[in-house]
């Protein structure tokens, strides 16, 4: 047999990390933009800008910009080495020139600059090397053309930050289509590129007032597509970071458009699979909104409750963290409006068998402000929470949680001991009532089913189509078994029972 480990033979599909290590993966990615069209003209070195006389400088500047529009196959690391080096040198000289020299930004140079930038950075991003790319675990694929592109981005940034920069001229070239292409690039897998894009987009948002609404609208579209269509976009965190500061600058009262963005885009974003990657930025945006307008806390909390994770404990912990941040800035009147549904959810979290979820929820009682809100409303909150807490104090497997629950119960008992005693004494009766209700419900349904049969019999003569009324149960017992694993112990391998 070949040199394959036994565990691999059994399972066939080994752990992801192992599989990845085995694969000879190319680490960097050629951009899809480059398509070899025969041989490229070789670049020839131009004189240095600093060596040229001031009259020639402008002409040379233009020439260098044009020279830098030549693209190379950066995946092929041996071809055109000389030309690539000339381009790199020219680009770094341009960066230097843009940041140190004054008065170089004359009106006629703007189109050349924008053409150079667009030619280099705007490209269709290549398909991902790794279709099940997990940003938390995997190394990102890096952009092969980075040595050049980095300088282009740097140049772009210095161009925008140049004291002579005039947005009134630039807006003819940096227009909607340009911004749209820039936004598409945020999907780049290379974090270095996204970092540059973030700063650049932020500058553009600051300098081009006419583009602001357009930028917001398209970020909106990217987010909606991410939530409802693709579930994949690499630059969500960066876009949210920009939005955080944009929201900060919103004028009061908030426009309907902005509120809609919060409730119909930001809140549904919590459903994303990769929430971990951008939750901090997302929560920051949400809290920014609430600090602007406290009446939004009710719909925000209701929204979070609607999208509360059902199975992912890690996400639940994040949701609880965000709820705490929201509660930190909530007004007591708003709190009253959501206390009931909110504490029902917190009650479920406290009773969660995953101790991190339970623990995170119980930490709310360490927060002074939340504690004061609870105290003010103890007559409503205690009855909601009591059942879960009481049960957990007896049942939870984790001793830390039990200890925490006891201290929470004690805190609440101190807030209203009369109510606490009442609830303790009625706990059992309450339980029984619930069970009885459950039984009643079952009986009702049974009765209803009987009724249906009676009706169906009666209706047969009326030839009603009833075939599809009986909900068909879907038994999905697909056996994908790998079979049994040989057991070294001979004594008790009784795997199969009566078939």
């Amino acid at each position: 047999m070949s040199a394959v480990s036994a565990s691999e033979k059994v399972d066939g599909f080994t752990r992801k990390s192992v599989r990845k290590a085995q694969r000879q993966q190319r680490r960097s990615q050629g951009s899809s933009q480059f398509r070899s069209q025969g041989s490229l003209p070789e670049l020839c070195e131009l004189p240095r800008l600093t060596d040229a006389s001031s009259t020639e400088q402008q002409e040379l500047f233009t020439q260098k910009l044009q020279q830098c529009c030549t693209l190379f196959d950066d995946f092929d690391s041996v071809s055109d080495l000389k030309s690539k080096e000339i381009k790199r040198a020219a680009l770094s000289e341009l960066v230097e020139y843009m940041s140190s020299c004054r008065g170089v930004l004359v009106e006629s140079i703007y189109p050349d600059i924008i053409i150079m930038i667009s030619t280099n950075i705007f490209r269709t991003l290549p398909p991902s090397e790794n279709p099940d790319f997990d940003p938390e675990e995997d190394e990102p694929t890096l952009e092969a053309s980075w040595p050049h592109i980095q300088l282009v981005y740097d140049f772009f940034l210095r161009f925008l930050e140049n004291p002579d920069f005039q947005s009134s001229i630039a807006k003819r070239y940096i227009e909607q289509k340009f911004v749209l292409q820039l936004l598409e690039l945020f999907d780049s897998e290379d974090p270095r590129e996204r970092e540059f894009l973030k700063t650049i987009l932020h500058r553009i948002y600051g300098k081009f007032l006419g583009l602001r609404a357009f930028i917001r609208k398209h970020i909106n579209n990217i987010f909606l597509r991410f939530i409802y269509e693709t579930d994949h976009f690499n630059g969500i965190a960066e876009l949210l970071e920009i939005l955080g500061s944009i929201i900060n600058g919103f004028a009061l009262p908030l426009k309907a458009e902005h509120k809609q963005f919060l409730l119909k885009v930001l809140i549904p974003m919590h459903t994303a699979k990769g929430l971990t990657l951008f939750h901090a930025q997302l929560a920051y945006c949400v809290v920014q909104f609430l600090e602007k307008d406290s009446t939004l806390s009710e719909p925000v909390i209701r929204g979070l409750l609607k999208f509360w994770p059902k199975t992912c404990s890690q996400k639940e912990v994040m949701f609880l963290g965000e709820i705490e941040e929201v509660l930190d800035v909530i007004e007591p009147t708003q709190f009253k409006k959501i206390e009931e549904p909110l504490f029902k959810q917190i009650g479920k979290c406290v009773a969660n068998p995953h101790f991190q979820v339970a623990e995170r929820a119980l930490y709310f009682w360490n927060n002074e402000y939340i504690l004061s809100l609870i105290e003010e409303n103890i007559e409503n909150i205690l009855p909601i929470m009591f059942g879960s807490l009481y049960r957990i104090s007896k049942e939870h497997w984790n001793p830390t949680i039990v200890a925490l629950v006891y201290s929470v119960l004690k805190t609440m008992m101190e807030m209203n001991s009369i109510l606490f005693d009442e609830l303790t004494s009625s706990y059992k009766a309450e339980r029984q009532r619930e069970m009885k209700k459950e039984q009643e419900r079952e009986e009702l349904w049974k009765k209803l089913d009987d009724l249906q049969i009676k009706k169906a019999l009666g209706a047969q003569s009326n030839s009603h189509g009833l075939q599809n009324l009986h909900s068909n149960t879907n038994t999905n017992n697909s056996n994908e078994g790998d079979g049994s694993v040989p057991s070294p112990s001979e004594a008790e391998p009784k795997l199969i029972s009566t078939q």
Partner: protein
Amino acid sequence: MAGADGDDSLYPIAVLIDELRNEDVQLRLNSIKKLSTIALALGVERTRTELLPFLTDTIYDEDEVLLALAEQLGNFTMLVGGPEYVHCLLPPLESLATVEETVVRDKAVESLRKISHEHSPVDLEVHFEPLVKRLASGDWFTSRTSACGLFSVCYPRVSSTVKAEIRQHFRTLCSDDTPMVRRAAASKLGEFAKVLELEYVKSDIISLFTALASDEQDSVRLLAVEACVSIATLLPQEDLESLVMPTLRQAAEDKSWRVRYMVADKFSELQKAVGPEITKNDLVPAFQNLLKDCEAEVRAAAANKVKEFCENLPEDSKETIIMTHILPCVKELVSDTNQHVKSALASVIMGLSTILGKDNTIEHLLPLFLAQLKDECPEVRLNIISNLDCVNEVIGIRQLSQSLLPAIVELAEDAKWRVRLAIIEYMPLLAGQLGVEFFDEKLNSLCMAWLVDHVYAIREAATCNLMKLVEKFGAEWAQNTIVPKVLGMANDPNYLHRMTTLFCINALSEACGQDITTKHMLPVVLKMSNDQVANVRFNVAKSLQKIGPVLDSNALQTEVKPVLEKLATDQDMDVKYFAQEAMSVLALA
């Protein structure tokens, strides 16, 4: 009928309302799933006047509940009183068609499409079409997206004035501000084109198609490629060149690989839609380019279509085109840098041999097959081996056997059990073609090794494989080569291997016949009834039941019966059960 049950008829709605307000989502979900029960209990009239308004007004719930509701309402026509009243279902479905969650919306649209057919033409204009219009001019993108799926179902059955309105609405949505809506419109363009009159296809659809195909977003452009197939099928041949081809050519060279991928993926459909002349002049060079594309994804999609494309080429020039234009590209793909491309090619390349015939196959294709058989990636090799039968038909397997063998041996030990499984399934075919001698020499040991594989599925397949081999090579061969090895495993220290002996006997007894079974197999089975592992013992009972019909009555009475009687008193209940079952089946009880 309704109300006739007196008291009984009052509580269904109360139950439902109570349950729909329950805190537990699962209970709400259950009650929605039984909505038809409730409607039936209520009768058609109360369903219309009470249940539906209640659902329309009070439902704000989890998406999972809404999804169930959207699905239920699509089957509700009879429950509201038949086609005459089907429009009562529109209000709740309309609001479901505007929710954010895509699956809910899609389900609502699906149900709307379903019940649209149950509307009379008048109802369609009075109730359904206004709904489509409202959705199409909704504020939030969700309702406009939903509207896109509804135009084609009502268009054919409304008056020409209303038709003009529908066309106008569709036009508006094709240039909607939101890319999501444009994507929805683009994906329904082909479907809509099919229900339009030809003059409007030419005047309206073509301009929309051209616009969508040059949209700023590649996700919209690629959907236009899909529509291209339907549109090209609708138009007369003479209009294709001027109306469709410029756009298609542009798509095949789009700067976004996603669009090119789509062209490659739809290539066979496009080929059929545009006909032989355009295929010869335009599609052949386009296909060559796709096979040489700079993105592996596109090359892989194109490679997948090689066989189909070649098959559908016009007869008169088929061979010339393949030999001069396609084959050179295929040759390059064999040594592609990307394994998915090679694997895609390997899955179809064998199909070319039937198109090209024996001589061309030996001269041009065989070297390619052999190269792929030696490929470093197991998937590529597996794809070649899985399609051997097509080449076999053309040139016979002897030609391949020399190079085939090393590849098979290697795949037989592949780390992935599914690969091993695929190879096992090819064994009987290979054995039949290579003959006994060759098999004994080269492949027999492999087949036996699989019997002790770590994965049950492989052991099971190996057992089944042995049976097929015995059917091919006969009982004598089995007695000499297989049976001794199989029976030897009965003494293996691992109980799983001992059980494999039993499974093999189950499979082989019939093919081997009474003589071998009685003389060689039966003693081993009987001996194993003393095994210390219960699983082995009850499998002995099962085996005896299985091989019983092959034995003569003497052996049954004198040898099998006592053993089964003993097992029937075993301390393990499963052993008892199977022993008793065997006795009753064999009529020994």
